[in-house]
């Protein structure tokens, strides 16, 4: 490498000071300084993220055994086996059910909460909604596994608090995690409890960027309440709606800890009853670490990845007409 391209320090042009050793070192390092700063983070990413991701892609085309010994090229065998598995298709349906309920519910509930908190803040004396905001956000900072275990007790059909309360209204409350029909809704209730606070904060940030004056302008024109929400607030909030939709989709498609824990992962029986809560993530985990079928698990991960990319592309396209950026 020549030093021709490196900018010459002023001292060199003036010829005033002789160059010191640190000065020379600095000149030598300067062109790479940016890379040096990025390296630690990039190194971690490459070793623990990009390489495994690439390996996963490779493994899905091999009959792979842990450690690599005795592995052989499999072509599309893994895909053939996978597509012939009813459980794989079932898990797709379960995941779809989870995502299709969670994403709209997250949007509606967190936006409604954000509107309520903002309204409460506006009518409170100090014009802040700090406490209600903190209380709603609180579940999000609790560990998934710990609070899931608590919810196992809350949702216990015989002794749980949930049914204790419900018995006051209905004679035959649901069996929650122990029934195939209510196991998924149980997980959805828990997940919403845990996550809506986070999405609410995103919506609050979006709402804060809408000047009050616009709502007053709408009010002067006789547009208030829900009409004002529909015609002024929502259109200006679409960037937040898009962000929340994408984040909620990715997060729910990859959800694992709460499903594993709520459905009895501690006793090695996650995903039940009768596979009613076996999502993709759970099935991948069980295939890899329960049945030691790594190449099949890798193939499923690849499929999940492709599905996520497709979904995100579709969402981008769908939202491109809706989202308004100022």
């Amino acid at each position: 490498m020549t030093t021709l391209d490196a900018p010459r320090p002023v001292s060199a042009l003036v010829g005033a000071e002789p160059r010191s050793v640190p000065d020379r070192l600095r000149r030598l390092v300067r062109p790479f300084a940016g890379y040096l700063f990025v390296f630690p983070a990039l190194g971690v990413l490459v070793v623990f993220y990009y390489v495994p991701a690439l390996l996963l892609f490779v493994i899905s085309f091999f009959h792979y055994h842990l450690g690599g010994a005795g592995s052989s090229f499999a072509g599309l065998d893994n895909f053939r086996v996978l597509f012939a598995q009813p459980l794989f298709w079932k898990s797709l349906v379960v995941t779809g059910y989870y995502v299709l309920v969670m994403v709209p519910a997250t949007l509606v509930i967190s936006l409604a909460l954000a509107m309520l908190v903002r309204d409460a803040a506006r009518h409170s004396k100090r014009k802040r909604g700090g406490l209600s905001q903190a209380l709603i956000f609180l579940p999000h900072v609790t560990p998934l596994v710990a609070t899931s275990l608590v919810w196992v007790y809350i949702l216990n059909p015989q002794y749980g608090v949930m049914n204790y309360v419900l018995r006051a209204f209905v004679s035959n409350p649901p069996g929650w995690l122990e029934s195939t029909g209510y196991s998924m809704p149980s997980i959805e209730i828990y997940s919403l409890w845990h996550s809506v606070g986070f999405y609410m904060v995103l919506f609050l940030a979006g709402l804060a960027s809408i000047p009050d004056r616009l709502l007053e302008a709408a009010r002067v024109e006789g547009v208030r309440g829900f009409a004002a929400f529909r015609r002024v607030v929502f259109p200006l909030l679409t960037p937040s709606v898009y962000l929340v939709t994408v984040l909620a989709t990715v997060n729910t498609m990859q959800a694992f800890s709460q499903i594993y824990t709520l459905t009895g992962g501690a006793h090695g029986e996650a995903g039940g009853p009768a596979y009613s809560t076996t999502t993709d993530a759970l099935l991948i985990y069980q295939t890899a670490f329960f049945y030691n079928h790594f190449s099949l698990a890798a193939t499923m991960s690849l499929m999940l990845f492709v599905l996520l990319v497709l979904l995100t592309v579709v969402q981008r396209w769908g939202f491109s007409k809706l989202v308004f950026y100022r």
Partner: protein
Amino acid sequence: MLQLDGITKTYGHDVALSGIGVMIEEGEFFSIVGPSGCGKSTLLRIVAGLDEPDDGTVSIDGVDVSGWEPVERGIGMVFQNYALFPHLTAGANIGFGLKGRLPKEELRRRVAEIAELLELDAAMLERRPRQLSGGQRQRVALGRALIRRPRVLLMDEPLSSADAPLRERMRSELKGFHQRAGTTTLYVTHDQREAMSMSDRMMVLDHGRAQQVGRPIDVYRRPATAFAARFVGSPGMSVWPMPVRAADGRHRLVTVDGNPWPVQVPCPAGTEGVLVGVRPERLGLRPCSEDSAVLHCTVDTIEPQGEQALVHASYCGNAVVAAVEAAAAEQLGAEVDLWLSAGDLHLFAVDSGQRLADGRGDAEAARAGSAVGG
């Protein structure tokens, strides 16, 4: 037409408005002018129905509209910085309030009608606010306020976001528009020049109290309070306190060093001083009448303005401004004698700032030939 009666509003311990009452006539262009924080925007919001007063009533066409929504009051409003909806086109902004209330064709016709009145062409109606210039945004905001054919048009500092040349143009545009449309207009501004040049009548507001209501020229010639005197005019009146000495039943002004002034003061017995005001244009470098009085001043700065120059001077520690010929101002040294005619003096009470009943400044008004009620 629009009547305000005893409007009072407090925020905690701060009095925003105190007993404001005024009657605004049909078709009138009425300005509320005052420094920031004087309560003028609060007053406008109360008229609009965006805020409720603690006390007092707003009536439109003789009907008390307290508690009515803005749209029920039949008002249109142009907000400060316009508050246009950024996600809607100019046309949709204008038609915002009528959308869904009129058939589509009818709405389009109304928008086109307003656009024509405001000289907005069809291409502009398709643009979003951020693609429009400041002047065009103002016209869109005006269009949105006017499309419902309001009985009263409210404007909250509509020119404050424009730069100086644009402001000048939009000022005349607004005035021209008012002359064509004749909508009763309530206009809020901190810029007394805007109020002076545009309004039929104006209210000078300070600390939530109406200082004076009247035609701009009358406020200029016969300010009712020392505040109005200082605030109106460019620059405003110079006002300073002077001692008063009683002798054989009459009160005379004296200078600080005890020299009598050729000016008699109408004030109750025991008065020790008054506020004296004079317009910069009425201060000269030479005596101009037989009852002239002189101020020995030190010159602070000289501000050339072309034909004239403003001499900022100090008289016994009080700021005094005189507008003199630029050529003469160039010759000035560190000291200057400023002459004024006793007839040009305006006198105000020291404590209340109220104009003293028959101050000699009235002569000026009389000379200008305007008929002003006592």
